[in-house]
């Protein structure tokens, strides 16, 4: 997924005028739209800031790290993938034991 390809000899690319379409939905690099969408609108959010005040005067600056942390908890019994694989491993192990016996 890195733009560099160290194993290929580099070929000089013909100069190409960047059209407006390229800027938004560029052909080679990840387009600006994708970058803006991925980086500013997605990805793990670890913290956020909020200033709290009264009468247009900001008095408190709050870091909301823990509020988000609480929002993310997944209890062990609910991880469906994990439970499925765990169950599959368990069944396989049982079958092997039986075959050996």
């Amino acid at each position, binding site marked *: *997924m*890195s*733009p560099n390809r160290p194993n290929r000899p580099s070929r000089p690319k013909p100069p190409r005028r960047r059209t407006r379409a390229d800027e938004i*939905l560029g052909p080679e*690099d*990840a*387009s*600006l739209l*994708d*970058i*803006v*969408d*991925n*980086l*500013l609108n*997605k*990805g*793990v*959010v*670890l*913290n956020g800031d909020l200033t709290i005040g009264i009468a247009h005067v900001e008095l408190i600056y709050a*870091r909301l*790290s*823990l509020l*988000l*942390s*609480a929002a*993310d*908890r*997944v*209890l*062990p019994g609910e*991880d469906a*993938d*994990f439970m499925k694989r765990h169950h599959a491993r368990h069944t396989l192990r049982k079958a092997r034991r039986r075959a050996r016996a």
Partner: protein
Amino acid sequence: MILCVYALVGAPRPLQKVTGIAGERLRGIRVDGVVAIVGEVRRRPAASTRNLRRYAAVVESIAARVPAILPVRFGTTFDDVAELTLVLRSRGTATRQRLRAVRLRAQMTIRLVGSDPDHGHSRGQTPVTGRSGGRPRNKATQGTQYLQQQLAVLRTAREVPQLAPIRPAIRRFVKDERVERRSGVITVHHLIPRAKAERYRAAVERAAGETGVRLFVSGPFAPYAFADNW
């Protein structure tokens, strides 16, 4: 100096060849089986085009070197390691689960310029007044019906009927999906096995050509849209 967090990965890997957006060396901070890849910067990076492109390049460079990565939102900074550790520790379970879900997978993005009514900011979220439908008939199952109504609203938001014609062609690649509607554009992100990106794109373009669906495919990217649980 503050810490800029680029991504969360599962295990520390050598990252000497990768530098941060300010050219800084990257290091891993390990908390309960999750490693945060960070760099020391002087101030919180501004969202300039240059910084955004650099950040994206850093994330993709890291992604090329690890089997599982959760990109972190641009501009995420911490004043000290203690605060970062606290946050990571309290989210350890969910983070490890997400790392498992994105292992050896990448994100492909399909965009359709929608002709359906704009739901506004819709990421499958129910409106604040979730009172959809009338009062449930049977008093004994009110609660269950309420939850099922909310589930139905979520499912409807997740549906993209415009994509239905091409779904058979790509079903075998798609491990997970996220849908977003914003500014008249429908964005669908698919989580697919990394090695199948070209096959996925070819299948999408072929099916779109055959069925006349106008769409735009981009990728592969690190799994930005699958970094959280919703």
